[in-house]
């Protein structure tokens, strides 16, 4: 059971909301002091899913693939430290400032170059821009079946059984391979690499590819190929002023709240 997991290195999404700032002029996120870049949490869960599928199948190669600047190498290394075998990093100025489309295009070319595995895994969305598009686009570009937003995956002798999170419950889906799967937070916590594994992963080579290595025209990727153009980036203003309910006891506060809700015609 061979798998390729596509991962992204992002600003830690768990940072406090109060620390979040944007520079509106350059339409970029300001990295607050002390806040780290991390592998997007859904992507770490996708690596975990790949490792579990391989364990169930008994053997296979897990590759981790990332597109991004130098810092994206750390996301690849994180995957390797979790137990993946090979790392690939698409790193070139021409890849920068792309959109979901240019990312999907570059990843699909890299996947073809690595060799189509049994399973392609993605997080359900990158926890920075929150689009959730790249997995589906790669599936379409490679003409593969896709099943998205999964809480569990199961290897069934060459086929894959999954449980998909939908608005009113879960759907069981069985798919042939090769296929594209996207993993949701319901999957559960990924393993956390131990120091020894992190040191071993640090020694592993990561293959770096440029657009030329993938046979892509630089005008088709990055800012040049992007089809989504950002006009503005801002932090929404929130002018709500909370009224804290007074009272001598919790019961008094509860009764006062009930009265306030009625007076404000909320109930």
């Amino acid at each position: 059971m061979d798998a390729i997991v596509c991962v992204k290195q992002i600003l830690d999404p768990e940072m406090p909301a109060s620390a979040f700032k944007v520079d509106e002029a350059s339409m970029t996120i300001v990295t607050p002091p002390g806040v780290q870049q991390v592998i997007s949490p859904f992507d770490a869960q996708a690596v975990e899913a790949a490792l579990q599928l391989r364990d169930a199948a008994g053997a296979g190669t897990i590759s981790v693939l990332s597109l991004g600047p130098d810092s994206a190498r750390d996301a690849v290394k994180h995957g390797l430290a979790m137990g993946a075998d090979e790392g690939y990093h698409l790193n070139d100025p021409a890849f920068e400032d792309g959109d979901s489309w240019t990312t999907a295009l570059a990843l699909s070319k890299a996947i073809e170059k690595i060799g189509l595995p049994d399973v392609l895994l993605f997080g359900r969305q990158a926890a920075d821009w929150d689009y959730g598009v790249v997995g589906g686009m790669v599936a379409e570009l490679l003409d593969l079946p896709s099943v998205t937003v999964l809480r569990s995956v199961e290897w069934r002798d060459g086929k894959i059984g999954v449980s998909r999170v939908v608005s009113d419950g879960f759907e069981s889906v069985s798919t042939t391979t090769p296929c594209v799967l996207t993993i949701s937070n319901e999957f559960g916590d990924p393993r956390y690499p131990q120091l020894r594994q992190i040191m071993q992963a640090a020694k592993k080579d990561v293959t770096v590819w440029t657009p030329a290595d993938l046979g892509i025209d630089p005008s088709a990727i990055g800012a040049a190929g992007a089809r989504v153009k950002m006009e503005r980036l801002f932090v929404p203003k929130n002018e709500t002023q909370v009224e804290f309910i007074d009272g001598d006891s919790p019961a008094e506060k509860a009764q006062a709240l009930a009265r306030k809700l009625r007076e404000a015609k909320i109930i």
Partner: protein
Amino acid sequence: MASVLVIGEAPDGQLSATSAELLGAATRLAEELGGGVACALIGGALSSAAQAAVAAGAETVYAADHESLAQYHTEAYVPLAAAIVQQDTPQAVLIGQTSIGRDLAPRLAARLDTAVVMDAVDLAVADGRIRATRPCFGGNARQVVTITSDPQIITVRAKSQDALDPDASRRGSITAIAVDPVAPSAAVTGKEQVQSEGVPLNTAEIVVAGGRGLGQESAFRDLEELASVLGAAVGASRAACDLGWYPPAQQVGLTGTVVSPTLYLAVAISGASQHMAGCGGSKSIVAINKDPGANIYNFCRFGVVEDYQKVLPPLTAALRELLQD
């Protein structure tokens, strides 16, 4: 040819509320773009949904109606949606940011060699193209984007747009789309419905929600009791769902259900950005949280800084008495 095509949803043969909202948005956008509104429906037993789509603003309805389409299947829906878009050649395609839309839109965009913007909460027209505003970074920021390729495909958040008043006297044409059933590579083999017995989360006027701060799964029974007094739905934060305290189908947040009720009563919820992205559109948010510095209080109309365990029983009793009168 319409200027805006809505890909609607009709579970159980009824046009969804979100689809009607998208048709309302499409009508407003089409007025500025100078064209008509069409609606694509893919499903089973669509005749009443097609009529409802006309009443909701569609001048043309494309209905791919076949019993094999009653349930969503990526491989069946994507080619039909693509065929309808190619037949109608709209400037823009609106799709709900739903379980179906999240899955369908990226593949549809790639198949049509265009781009897609997900989860728009505001739509406007500038220089003849749509400007979509969407939350990002877990709701911490918003970006305004345009798509430079055609058609412009945009998924739109439920309840972010107003539907028109349904008007049964509106006239529209209904075009049947030929359906050639395919045997999918990825086949749905079962469905586990986790429908809470109470009020459905996405349409509830009042939502009572609990978070990690509840400290225990059993506290949700107390929330359910309060909810039954208020006629409310019960929701949970992602943290509470990930702990297994409440079903993921009841999760409120960026990766769960987006709700915008009249009253959102958040109990022991800190108010992480990704949670606020799911409830920030509520008319009034009220929180019970013992931490006065909790982020949720930045969004609240009323707050009770107390241990929820001491507040819930008297609050439930007081509301029961109040609502009996």
